C-alpha cells in the first residue's frame, strides 16, 4: 500500500471517531456543533500524558477519554436545559471557549534539552510516543482501525440493548420517553459524556499521528464536518458515520480534477444529498430493509 493510500485511510479512521461521537448525540436527538472541543481535549490530554509525563499511549488515551467525558458532561449540565438549535449554539460557544483556553495554555517542561508542552498559539510539538517507538504509518493505520472497530462494535451492541432503545426513544420523543419512566436528563447527560469520550479518543490518536497539535486544529470547521459525516452516512446504524467520512474524503479525493474548485463541488454534492436523503444514506428505513432481506 502506498503512503498516500495509508494517509487517506488513517484520516478516515481518525475522523470516524468524532463522526461517531456526533452520531451518538444525533440519535439521542441532540445536534452538537462542539464535538471538536472534546477531540481537542483528548489530543492535549494524551499529548501531555505521553510527551511530558512519559506515560504509555494506552494510558494516555484512557486519561484523554476520561477528561473528554468529564469536559463534555460539564458542558452538558447547563446546555441540556436548552433544546434544538439553542443547544447546538451552546455547544458551539463552549467549544470556542475551550479552543481559546488552548490558546492561553502555556505549560512546558525541559526534556532532553527541548521545551516540550503546549505553548498557546505556537502549538504543542514533540508528541512523539508513536514515532519514537518506530511505529510505521501502516502499523499506526492498523492501530487506528483496530481501535475504531472495537468502538463501533461497542456502540452497535449498546444500540441493540435496552439502554440503546431508551436512547433512540429519547431522540424520537423525549416527553414520551419521560412518561415511560426514562430519566431524560440523566440519560442525555450520559450520552453527552460518552460522545465526549469518543471524540477525545480520536483526538488522542490524532495528536500521536501528527506529532504536533495547535488550537486551530479544533475550530468550527472540524465540528461542522463531524456533524456532516454523521448526517451524510445516515442515522440508522453506527456504521453510517464511517460511510459518511469515507464518502467525504473519497469525494474530496475523487474530485481532484476540479482542483481549487473541488470544495465548492463537494459542498454542492453534500447539499443535494441532504435534500434527497435528510437522515443520510444508511437511514433507519434502509437499515430495516437490509435486516428484513436476510
Amino acid at each position, binding site marked *: 500500500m502506498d*503512503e*498516500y493510500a495509508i*494517509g*487517506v485511510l488513517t*484520516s478516515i479512521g*481518525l*475522523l470516524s471517531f468524532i463522526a461517531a461521537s456526533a452520531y451518538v448525540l444525533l440519535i439521542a436527538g441532540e445536534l452538537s456543533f462542539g464535538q471538536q472541543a472534546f477531540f481537542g481535549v483528548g489530543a492535549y490530554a494524551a499529548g501531555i500524558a505521553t510527551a511530558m509525563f512519559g506515560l504509555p499511549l494506552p494510558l494516555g488515551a484512557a486519561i484523554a477519554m476520561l477528561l473528554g467525558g468529564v469536559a463534555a458532561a460539564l458542558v452538558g449540565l447547563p446546555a441540556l436545559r436548552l433544546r434544538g438549535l439553542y443547544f447546538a449554539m451552546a455547544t458551539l460557544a463552549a467549544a470556542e471557549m475551550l479552543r481559546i483556553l488552548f490558546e492561553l495554555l*502555556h505549560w512546558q517542561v525541559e526534556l*532532553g*534539552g*527541548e521545551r516540550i508542552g503546549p*505553548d*498557546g*498559539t*505556537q502549538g504543542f*510539538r514533540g508528541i*512523539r510516543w508513536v*514515532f519514537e517507538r518506530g511505529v510505521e504509518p501502516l502499523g499506526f493505520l492498523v492501530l487506528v482501525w483496530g481501535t475504531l472497530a472495537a468502538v463501533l462494535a461497542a456502540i452497535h451492541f449498546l444500540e441493540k440493548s435496552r439502554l440503546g432503545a431508551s436512547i433512540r426513544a429519547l431522540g424520537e420523543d423525549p416527553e414520551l420517553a419521560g412518561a415511560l419512566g426514562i430519566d431524560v436528563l440523566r440519560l442525555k447527560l450520559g450520552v453527552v459524556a460518552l460522545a465526549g469520550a469518543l471524540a477525545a479518543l480520536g483526538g488522542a490518536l*490524532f495528536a500521536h499521528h*501528527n*506529532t*504536533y497539535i*495547535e488550537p*486551530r*486544529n479544533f*475550530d468550527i*470547521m*472540524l465540528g461542522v*464536518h463531524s456533524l456532516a459525516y454523521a448526517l451524510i452516512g445516515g442515522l440508522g446504524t453506527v456504521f453510517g458515520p464511517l460511510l459518511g467520512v469515507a464518502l467525504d*474524503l473519497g469525494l*474530496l*479525493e475523487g474530485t481532484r480534477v476540479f*482542483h*481549487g474548485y*473541488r470544495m465548492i463541488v463537494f459542498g454542492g454534492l453534500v447539499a443535494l444529498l441532504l435534500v434527497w436523503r435528510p437522515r443520510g444514506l444508511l437511514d433507519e428505513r434502509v437499515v430495516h430493509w437490509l435486516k428484513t432481506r436476510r
Partner: protein
Amino acid sequence: MRRLIFLALMAPQAALAQKTDATLDCKPTGKDFVYDCLIRLNPALAGVQITLGADMPSMPMAHQVKPVKASPTETPGEYRAKLDLEMTGEWAVKLRLAGPVRDQLILHYEFDARGARPVKRSPKPPRK
C-alpha cells in the same frame, strides 16, 4: 578506561540530542498551487530520504496532499521537491526524514502567488 567507557556511553546520547531543523524556500511554478520547494536541512546532512506532505491546520485531515519524495541537489543538505497544494493559505508541511537521521518535522508556511513565507505567531504575552 573509565573515561573511555563514559565517552562511549555518552556518544549516542549526544547524537540523539542533535536535533535536525529545516527551512523551505518555495516558488510558484506557474501551474495553479504547485510550488517548487528547496529544502535546507540544518545540520546539512547528505543522503537523507525526505518525504513531504502537507495539511491545513484549520481543516485537519480534510485536505490530503499526495506525499512526494525530495531529491538531493548538488549542495549537501539541500533537497528539492514539488508540492501540489489545493489552495493558497497556511499549510503545515510535514517532513519525514529517514536514512542517516530519522525524524519528523512540521513547518508552518503561508503559501500565496509569490511563494511561501514562514508563519509568525505572537509568542506568549509577558506577565504584567
